[in-house]
């Protein structure tokens, strides 16, 4: 019981269940300074939440290592058509007496 009180005093009674919902807000720097201090105090004494934060950062890092190249490229006819449209806008403008 004594240990529990000490633990709660040190962690500011910040539950781990609350931390896991706040990680993105924390990483985005969107927290109030007070809230951030509470979270950091908890982190400094809770190795499991520290592990969780490391995993979360690792997840973000891994997302940055994949690409969106698996989506098929624009099919050629559409590309040609668009390039023609692009050229034609110029032609229209130069034949426009107001231009």
């Amino acid at each position, binding site marked *: 019981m004594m240990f529990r009180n000490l633990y709660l005093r040190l962690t500011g009674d910040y539950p781990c269940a609350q931390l896991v919902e706040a990680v993105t807000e924390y990483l985005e720097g969107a927290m109030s300074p007070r809230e951030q201090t509470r979270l950091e105090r908890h982190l400094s004494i809770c190795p499991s939440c520290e592990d969780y934060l490391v995993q979360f950062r690792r997840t973000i890092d891994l*997302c940055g290592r994949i690409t*969106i190249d698996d989506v098929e490229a624009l099919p050629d006819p559409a590309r040609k058509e668009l390039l023609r449209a692009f050229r034609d806008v110029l032609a229209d403008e130069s034949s426009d007496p107001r231009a």
Partner: protein
Amino acid sequence: MPFVPAASADFTDDGVLVPALRRRDQAAFGWLLDQYSAPLRRLARSYVSNDAAAAEAVQETWLAVITGIDRFEQRSSLKTWMYRILVNVARSKGVKEHRTVPFASLGEELDGEERAVDPQRFRDHRDHWPGHWAAPPVAWDEEPEDHLLGRETLSIVAAAIAALPPNQRSVITLRDVQGWDSVEVCNALDISETNQRVLLHRARSKVRSALETHFEEDAQ
């Protein structure tokens, strides 16, 4: 290969790209098409129900870019401007479809209690330490580096992102896969900072959870 850039102009710089487009430099427009068609289409797909409609939305976006480039005021980056056009086009297509097709709205993805971690992994209110870990995460440091970054791990990440609801998928793709900052994403998708953060958090939490399952299965 009809369009060989005259010099290797740096089209990643709006200061080079925008004037080139206004000069109707075809290399510039070709570069734009190659660079953005796939990501725009993927984003469009989160607003409409099928690939054909997504392709149509992208095509309309390109036409809007062609006709609008001279009026583009450069208050945002060209990229953000194009994404905004795409989102508007795709959204209105999605709304038209909505009459017949079930469509995941932003509201549906933001509402409701969606937990980052299964609540059962925390101690309940009868415990001395309610809300603290009962089944804490196991550090991934034990994983060998080549496994942690291996092809299989990356395919888990890609699959987890693909399985997300459309709006969460859009946000995590732009933020964490493509590396946009939050202001760019909010502008392009026309969502608030808070909504963006909620969507991103839910998306990241699910990807983390998928990775955790993957590493746990491997450990067995």
